């Protein structure tokens, strides 16, 4: 089973990378880009056919490792 997860910085946390990327795009002529925030995308393949069990595992690994819960949020993309 394949499940994907996206990890992003929490809403109020400074994103230095996103800030600079956004400014660069403006300098490249993309005037209508207001804001960009950068995150990470994980594609997780599991050896588990039970969907509920699989989701539980992905929740757990997101909390424990994939995201730094002090400054990041995660979202699991269920198909």
């Amino acid at each position: 089973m394949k499940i994907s997860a996206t990890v992003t910085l929490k809403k109020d946390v400074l994103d230095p990378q996103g800030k600079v990327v956004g400014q660069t795009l403006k300098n490249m002529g993309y005037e209508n880009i207001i804001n960009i925030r950068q995150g990470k995308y994980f594609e997780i393949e599991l050896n588990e056919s039970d969907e509920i069990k699989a989701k539980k595992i992905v929740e757990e690994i997101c909390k424990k490792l994939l995201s730094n819960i002090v400054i990041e949020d995660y979202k699991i993309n269920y198909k």
Partner: protein
Amino acid sequence: MKSSVIVFPGSNCDRDVAVALTKFQIENQMVWHNETQLPKSDLVVLPGGFSYGDYLRTGSIASKSRIINDVIRHGKKGGLILGICNGFQILIETGLLPGVLLRNKKLRFLSKNILLKVLNTNNKFCSNYKNKNIIQLPIAHNEGNFFANNELLKNLEDNNLIAFKYCDERGKIEKNSNPNGSSNNIAGILNPEKNILGMMPHPERFIDPLLSGEDGSILFKSLLRPE
């Protein structure tokens, strides 16, 4: 000889390389990234540092600076370009040099002195290394792992476009002497016309006997007074 050192926001080895160029009597100017035109130059240097904080991909944002178009034009006309560390990363992002620079194999920043074998002295940067082809220079980087696929590697090797490889005291090129996992121990490469050199180590930091090395001096001397 006239040189231009491009300064990007976040470059931090610009002063060091300017000191080296001036020490070896190369007439140098600092050029801000936002300029559209280069002053008359024989050599353009893209210095080390963390241009734009290394954000997104290292060198990626600098490669979109205003001045880069003129740098590319200079390179295509046969003008000399030296990219050191972050400069090498920028040259790759502009497409002036091939391959990609990935994160060091051990996933850590590494600052240490390493040994290099100079493999191609038939170019304006390395000609004076003819008499000394095992040299010591410092590296200081987190993304120095040069990666090329098999086809590109063959191309580089067959056409003798590899300038430096990491080696040991006897000049042996092997895994143990490779600090960052780069393909074939590659530390620096040239373009086919040999007017553009990209290298991860910092020659500008070894121009002083007090700092335990003058192997960097040889590169600058080659530029001005090839032996």
